[in-house]
């Protein structure tokens, strides 16, 4: 009914805006040209250094990630890859002793600028955590939460978003009959897919995944992996993983972190078959880590 109202006013708007349309089109073309000249990467880090207190975690990390790709971050525990991942939605802000220098850009914009509102950033950069962390509420409320906190109250909108997100996370068929069920009653694999659905419901453009399958059994891992591959069409995905096979299976690009350095960053196939650095070769062949 809302839409009907819109279509009634549309002709009026058209006449008023007729002259403006051409101008607008022209400007849009100009803007596009300008964008092409200065290409925006979906995610970008520039000379990034990070510390926890006195301890240095990341050294001069430069990384450019294109939109709609999957990038895996691998490396031994404590190498800084999770810290790096959490820079993009500023989850490190809650650690009082954390500090950094250098820039983190999402869609060409520095996310650590003063004027960036952290809540807005996290709507466009979603996150899935290592351990599935559904809210102790119903499945429906879990998925609807992101929209609810934005003030969305219309049931039709929420219903639609919940169904769509659960479909995208390939969980819909398993839970459609009891959306009122408490999410804690789901299996571990289902919980993790629910968390993915919850992240997708706010329609982000980037998805950060911090070892999303490390606590899952092989079957659930497989389901999450094929889901990640499907999501690539719409989202830019950055995934931290300890599982090298997983990295080679799902990702387009892989970055190898070691002791806070980005040792090697290349497309996944080349990195795994012809690593350029000795450290990378040692790690992927299982000599350490």
């Amino acid at each position: 009914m809302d839409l009907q109202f819109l279509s009634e006013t549309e002709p009026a708007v058209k006449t008023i805006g007729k002259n403006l349309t051409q101008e607008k089109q022209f400007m849009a073309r100009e803007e596009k040209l300008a964008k092409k000249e200065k290409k925006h990467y979906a995610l970008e880090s520039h000379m990034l250094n990070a510390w926890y207190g006195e301890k240095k975690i990341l050294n001069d990390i430069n990384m450019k990630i294109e939109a709609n790709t999957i990038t895996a971050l691998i490396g031994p525990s404590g190498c800084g890859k999770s810290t790096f991942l959490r820079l993009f939605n500023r989850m490190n802000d809650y650690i009082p002793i954390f500090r950094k220098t250098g820039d983190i850009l999402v869609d060409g914009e520095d996310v650590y600028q003063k004027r960036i509102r952290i809540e807005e950033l996290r709507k466009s950069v979603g996150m899935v955590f290592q351990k599935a962390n559904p809210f102790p509420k119903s499945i429906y409320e879990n998925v609807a939460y992101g929209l609810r906190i934005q003030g969305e109250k219309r049931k039709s909108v929420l219903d639609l978003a919940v169904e769509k997100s659960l479909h995208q996370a390939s969980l819909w068929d398993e839970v459609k009959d009891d959306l009122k069920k408490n999410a804690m009653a789901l299996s571990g694999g289902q919980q993790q897919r629910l968390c993915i659905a919850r992240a997708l419901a706010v329609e982000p453009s980037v998805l950060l995944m911090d070892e999303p399958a490390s606590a899952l059994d092989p079957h659930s891992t497989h389901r999450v992996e094929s889901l990640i591959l499907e999501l690539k069409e719409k989202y830019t995905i950055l995934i931290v993983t300890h599982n090298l096979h997983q990295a080679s299976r799902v990702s387009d690009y892989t970055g190898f972190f070691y002791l806070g350095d980005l040792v090697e960053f290349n497309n996944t196939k080349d990195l795994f078959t012809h690593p350029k650095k000795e450290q990378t070769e040692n790690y992927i062949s299982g000599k350490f880590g």
Partner: protein
Amino acid sequence: MFKSSRNRIIDKSFQVIGLATTIFGLLILATFIFYIFYVGATRIDWAFMTNLPSRFYAKAGILTAWTGTIWIFVLTAFSAIPIGISTGIYLEEYAKKTRLANILEINISNLAGVPSIIYGLLGLEIFGRFLGLGRSVLAGSFTLALLILPIIIVATKESLRAVPQSLKDAAYGLGATKWQTIWTQVLPVSFSGIMTGIVLALSRVVGETAPLIVIGALAYVPFVAKTPMDDFTVLPMQIFNWISRPQHGFIVNAAAAIIILLIIVIILNGFAVFIRNRASRKNNW
């Protein structure tokens, strides 16, 4: 002797000692309750509940005392709970973990152990004299609110701290503000823990006497308090007053009043436990 068999003996003897101490404590309590009921149960009737105090023990009732207790309970709850919970939330979730915050935290915990009569002196000076509330219900409630604030604050902080970080991360990750995270996720989960602290604190309010004596609550109040500015008495004061009388009839009255006080505490606690259980069933992990 083998080490394992010695361990078994230690284990067994601890079990026996534990059982003995438990029975010891319960026996003393049971004796007390049995004696109180033996002396006072027959004294309780409608007239006892609705009569004003009197110097004749047969005519004396506890109307002013139990209504005063309800007054104090409600007003104290309304003033202490919001302040206590907000303070707990601020200290745990918002305040920077500086040295000052640390000192503050230790001091709040220490305040929970300060003798209640000291709070009475503080209340007398601040509420009774400085704010001019005299010996009114309000002065008494505020004094008791001060007394239980540390308990509520500490309970709130502890329950908030027990909420897993992963839950907060989930909310923050979806773009929730700090307040949204606290209100929609953290508080519902920690609610039952906070309620437990509040129940303990409010039970203390119902039984507390010393600070009220200091601020000047009277045992003989010949009318029921109608506004928060009226004089009042409470059940423990009435009991205290009666047991210091020489006539046996007043001792019987005191026993009867103790039974009523016990019943009020049980009802209030039962109510709080009911709320808590209903909330925790909604948030089962």
